């Protein structure tokens, strides 16, 4: 009976029912069988209003949407090109750095491919890079900054882990620090790969000129302080994460609407609506998942899961390998926010039993999810790129796979070398 119900729920989820309804149905069924009054669902949902850190979610999302709609992408490319364009690998490295920074602020919702790709793809081809290489590069870079603060998935992982309780001490600031070196590793490896691939295809470099650099700085003068005060504010402990989000949202709003004047007030209404629709979707799933998670923990499901795992998996190493494979598949099928909200409560207790540090698990989780974005055949970024650049999806597959392999290698390094993530916080 239970199994029939569960398989029915899975079927209806796969057929495309809103995920939050599937979660509600599961939680309600669980509470009903435990003979708990179903009003508990509303009490659990109301916990959204008792979690101060959640404030960061709508505020950073809003700031990201505004940055995505204004010409920030152009200024950022010009600025980075002025400073990094002279290096071997020039524009390719510029593209990686720019996309990573942009994604960290806008979240990997496809904005990076749409906004940055539109600039970088023609620029790369014009600079002499091959079509496949350029296409693969922009598609891959669409999710590159996920590990860098203040990326939303990173914050969301921290929130979920904190809600779990049970001896898990984890701070979002720690996650922010832990993500930096893995992200740098990814950019470094991708850059090396780009230089190696293009060694027979000499690309003219841009000479560094003070004049260019100066113009680029002056153009982006209002935006350069943004990452600085987010990073410095949070790392120095001057701002809490949600406070940094508030300041960022206000600052971006004032700068883009009133100083650069690139967003009209009428546009602002649409931006607010679209960004808050996304926030609503995430918060709703989060809220109802809090209920389901509570039920699962009461029913000791994670412990049973661990017992089951232990029958087959004895060592941490094997566990990590299986984890990687599972997350890669998951990342291609589920969008990153629901994947975090649904899987972390189940996975974290099991991973802890195998001796994986919760912060490290977060980095592994997101690094895999990042690749899931462009894992054929269903990774979301593949479709966005195909749509945006008007290319058949098969071309995108072929162009992306080399980059994917490079990133897979970096994910393996990140997974089996915990100190890379943890050495600054332990």
């Amino acid at each position, binding site marked *: 009976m239970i199994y029939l119900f569960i398989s029915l729920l899975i079927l209806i989820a796969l057929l*495309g029912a809103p995920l939050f309804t599937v979660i509600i149905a599961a939680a*309600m069924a669980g509470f009903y069988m435990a003979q708990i009054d179903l009003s508990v669902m*509303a009490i659990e949902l109301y916990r959204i209003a008792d979690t101060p850190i959640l404030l960061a979610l709508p505020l950073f999302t809003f700031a990201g949407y505004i940055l995505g709609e204004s010409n920030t992408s152009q200024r950022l490319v010009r600025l980075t090109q002025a400073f990094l364009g002279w290096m071997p690998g020039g524009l390719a490295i510029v593209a990686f750095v720019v996309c990573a920074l942009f994604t960290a602020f806008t979240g990997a919702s496809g904005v990076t491919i749409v906004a940055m790709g539109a600039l970088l793809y023609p620029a790369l081809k014009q600079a002499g890079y091959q079509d496949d290489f350029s296409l693969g590069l922009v598609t891959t870079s669409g999710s590159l900054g996920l590990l860098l603060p203040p990326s939303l998935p990173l914050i969301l992982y921290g929130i979920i882990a904190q809600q779990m309780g049970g001896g898990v001490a984890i701070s979002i600031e720690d996650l922010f620090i832990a993500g930096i070196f893995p992200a740098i590793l990814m950019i470094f490896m991708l850059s090396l790969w780009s230089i190696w691939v293009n060694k027979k295809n000499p690309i003219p470099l841009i000479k560094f000129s003070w004049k260019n650099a100066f113009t680029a700085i002056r153009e982006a003068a209002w935006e350069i302080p943004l990452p600085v005060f987010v990073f410095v504010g949070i790392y120095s402990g001057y701002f809490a994460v*949600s406070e940094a*989000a508030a300041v960022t949202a206000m600052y971006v709003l004032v700068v883009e609407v009133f100083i650069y004047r690139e967003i009209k007030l009428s546009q602002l209404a649409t931006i607010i*609506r679209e960004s808050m629709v996304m926030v609503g979707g995430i918060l*709703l799933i989060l809220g109802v998942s809090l209920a389901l998670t509570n039920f699962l923990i009461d029913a000791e499901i994670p412990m049973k899961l661990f017992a089951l795992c232990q029958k087959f998996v004895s060592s941490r190493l094997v566990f990590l390998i299986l984890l990687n494979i599972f997350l890669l598949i998951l990342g291609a099928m589920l969008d990153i926010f629901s994947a975090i909200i649904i899987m972390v409560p189940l996975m974290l207790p099991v991973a802890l039993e195998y001796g994986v540090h919760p912060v490290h698990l977060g980095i592994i989780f997101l690094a895999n999810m990042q690749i899931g974005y462009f894992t054929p055949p269903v990774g979301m970024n593949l479709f966005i790129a195909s749509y945006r650049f008007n290319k058949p999806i098969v071309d995108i597959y072929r162009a992306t796979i080399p980059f994917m392999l490079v990133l897979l290698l970096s994910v393996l390094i990140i997974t089996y070398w915990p100190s890379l993530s943890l050495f600054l916080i332990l």
Partner: protein
Amino acid sequence: MTNKTAFFSRVVGLVQKIEDYILICLLLTMITLAVLQIFLRNFFDSGIIWGDSLVRVLVLWIGLVGAMVASRTDNHISIDILSRYLPARIKRYSSLATHVFTVVVTALMAWFSLNFVRMEMGENLIAFANVPAWVCESIIPIAFAVISLRYALFSIRLFVQLMTKKQATKKP
């Protein structure tokens, strides 16, 4: 008939406008209040006592109103691996099934959260300042009722489409 549909779409348009404005007001209030609190704390060593509580309730409201708006266009996060590859004919039936499922689940959720709000009304708890807790919580049943209603309309429309299609094919 056309008069009625015109009236109906005017009402829908009006409701959507109101939702939009509520969303905008909530977000701008939230940003302003959050920044004001930081400002007061750092420069005057003070702050609005109920400010942080209000901001947290605003997060819930924004989330739920955002979810209401998302259901206008069936724009909720879902897994579409299977449905993407279904043939159009079967897909119509499967989306009718998922829509009806959504109507039932959200209606149940609206009902049970309404119970919760009614219980809270009886207890007369205060959330912050003079605002009773049940007022802050009232958005939960409202949001789920609206979502349920929207999906009910989707289901009816889809059902009617399916029926008329069937008749059209039978007629030769």
